[in-house]
């Protein structure tokens, strides 16, 4: 299973993501830069978190319009798995690869804490190593994670099982509609989520609830 990580100026969770992918798959991901127009043959493309282009205009707006994102979209159309975490989720939404929008947290505060997530759909390439309905721990760190979609889009997401992770046990940190924390696109091979599974993969992190996500997506699920 080969993976690539997209690097854009202002991202800062790339190191953690590379460490997670490397330690779990045994292979270091390839690096793709914002001006690259092609992406090597890989099975998984990851856009990590951070503050690409300083969050200017809207979070992820500038990054979503860089050449590399056209290449990511082409790969996604061919069925390559694409995963965006935090700013990566915002970029995928701004690029139109996932529906809806991510708005300022209703508290207007940056939140950096641990939340509970329920696995709402364990039948995706990203979640097959979890049990349906399993509640996991996961850290969040963001200012703009308040997911919004118009009523028709929301009904479609809910009806088609595209809501993959939901904040559970009253831990919604941002006012996100229907407690949505992560969604997949209609074809199921593009995932966006605000929480950071890469920061909870080994005992030294205080837990490993994020690890099954990587095992799922890297084809290592038992």
């Amino acid at each position, binding site marked *: 299973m080969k993976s690539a990580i997209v690097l854009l100026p202002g991202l800062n969770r790339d190191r953690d993501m590379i460490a997670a992918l490397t330690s779990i798959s045994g292979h270091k991901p390839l690096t793709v830069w914002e001006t690259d127009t092609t992406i090597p043959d890989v099975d998984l493309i990851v856009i990590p978190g951070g503050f690409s282009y300083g969050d200017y205009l809207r979070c992820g*707006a500038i990054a979503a*319009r860089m050449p590399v994102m056209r290449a990511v979209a082409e790969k996604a159309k061919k069925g390559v798995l694409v995963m965006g975490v935090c700013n990566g989720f915002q970029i995928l939404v*701004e690029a139109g690869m996932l*529906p809806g929008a991510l708005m300022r947290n209703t*508290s207007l505060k940056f939140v950096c804490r641990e939340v509970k997530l329920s696995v709402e759909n364990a039948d995706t390439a990203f979640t097959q190593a979890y049990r349906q309905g399993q509640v996991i721990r996961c850290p969040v760190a963001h200012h703009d994670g308040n997911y*919004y979609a118009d009523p028709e889009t929301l009904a479609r997401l809910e009806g088609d099982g595209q809501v993959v992770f939901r904040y559970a046990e009253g831990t919604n940190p941002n006012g996100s509609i229907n407690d949505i924390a992560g969604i997949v696109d209609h074809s199921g091979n593009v995932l966006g989520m605000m929480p950071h599974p890469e920061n909870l993969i080994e005992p030294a992190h205080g837990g490993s609830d994020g690890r099954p996500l990587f095992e799922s997506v890297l084809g290592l699920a038992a």
Partner: protein
Amino acid sequence: MIKARITVTLKNGVLDPQGKAIEHALGALGFDGVGQVRQGKVFDVELDGADRARAEADLKAMCEKLLANTVIENYNVTLT
């Protein structure tokens, strides 16, 4: 040269927590009777040339492609 002002505002029905906070702050300053406050963005853009129809079309394309997120925002283009 053509000058234009673009305003980008949140669509009706989209919650605006920043607008709400401003609304409360105005109330706290003693401004009575302040209804809803919605926060938006303003872009002043200068364009080469004198073709106003083309400028307007270009500016709308800029809004659609970058300046506004049409999932949650409306835009308005005014040539000055």
